[in-house]
């Protein structure tokens, strides 16, 4: 299953490393990354494949959320379908 991970918050050292580390630990493969800084705000969007993920989607979502809260970031994972539905006919 393909999903989109978004990381939004104030920029600081090690954001990509920590998020990628957590995804790797859970067997989530990263397919694409785009990252930018918008008015000091760090914005990263990743396309990931969760088919080999070792925990449930809900657990992964919670782990990412908690990881984000530790470092003042909003991190979420959502199935790609919702973006397709909303923006593609």
């Amino acid at each position, binding site marked *: 299953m393909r999903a*989109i991970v978004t990381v939004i918050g104030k920029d600081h050292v090690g954001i990509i490393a920590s998020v990628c580390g957590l995804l790797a630990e859970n067997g989530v493969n990263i397919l694409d990354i785009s990252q*930018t800084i918008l008015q000091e705000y760090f*914005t990263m969007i990743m396309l990931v494949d969760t088919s080999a993920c070792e925990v449930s989607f809900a657990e992964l979502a919670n782990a990412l959320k908690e990881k984000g809260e530790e470092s003042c970031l909003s991190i979420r994972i*959502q199935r790609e379908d*919702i*973006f397709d*539905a*909303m*923006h*593609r006919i």
Partner: protein
Amino acid sequence: MINSGEILQTIEMIDQQHLDIRTITMGISLRDCAHPDIDVCCRKVYDKITKYAENLVKTGEDIEKEFGIPIVNKRISVTPVAMVAESCEADTYVPLAKALDRAAETVGVNFIGGFSALVHKGCTKGDEILIASIPEALAATGRVCSSVNVATTRAGINMDAVAKMGRIIKEAAAMTAENGGMACAKLVVFANAVEDNPFMAGAFHGPGEPECVINVGVSGPGVVHHALQAVKGQGFDVVAETIKKTAFRITRMGQLVAQEASRRLNVPFGIVDLSLAPTPAIGDSVADILEEMGLSSVGAHGTTAALALLNDAVKKGGVMASSRVGGLSGAFIPVSEDAGMIAAVEKGALTIEKLEAMTCVCSVGLDMIAVPGDTPAETISAIIADESAIGVVNNKTTAVRIIPAPGTKVGDVVDFGGLLGTAPVMPVNPNDSSAFIGRGGHIPAPLHSLKN
């Protein structure tokens, strides 16, 4: 791949503009639960609902997590109870309301709708008992919602039922006087009720519906408001196009969630109801949209035109986004559930008369309106008659959900809590309508030709 701007736009809609799935409502037929013994009937009703809806809440929560979209309510609608209970040898259906309440509590849904009767042409024995049971049923339960259909375009208006519902509303208010007449917030009087509405308090599983079905209601007044902020000062063609595009996006998401819920629960997908349903939260208001179109306050002259445009554009945008659109679909204008409407009432800009005009073009009717506790039953019946006439003549659904809050007067505020919000008590026309309501009988169905 979807581009990052689109992804961030979706997230902003959810995070900052209150985009959500307002409800996943499972419709369950109870027609096979009829039994002469009301206790057996109650048991069958309880067993069937708890079996069919066992996984409803869990499935809703799973989808919520995976798609990252809030699903605010999981609810159940059932066959109008008057039809199910009619074969019971009982003189009250309150035990059935309690059975519904217990079943709702067991499966974890916050409302269950369908303590209802369809009496637009006349009452059966069961309809009479059900209507008489409404005040106690709503006072004795927390989650049960009730509705009565008193008129249709094809049948006309049952004025005996209209007279009766005025008295029932007063009685329901009196039985829940300590909660501001809360029971009335769970009671809707309809004209042209729809069979597949997923929204409370008027949801029931109509007699033409299948055994079990999943209906989804989407919302998002905040998203429409935000989109209109980007086209300030531009012509109404631009406004209509902008609303259509936004409604399309919102509905596509509802369709996705509806199909996913239907697949996981192994229950057929019924409809998506694309309604702009406000909540008391700031930024989740239909009034804000109307004001964004250029009105200094909702209620000002021009409000009806603005609402007509909004209601129509929402439907046009949504229709293409879903394989099946149904329910009430359009813009709701409840007072207590919309911060902008409350503000307009409090500053005297919005009256019941203007709301009545707005119901000619909105998706339902006079909704969540508190009036003084001493408002006579006949005046409430007359309000229902007016609203029914609008629905019957214009071939649309209209409804009245009015709360004569005991002990209150104009200017007081009644708090119902949660999604039901806070209602400022509004003045009603003080002139007497009792001789009109006292006539009883039937207002004939309108002519459908010679339309000038």
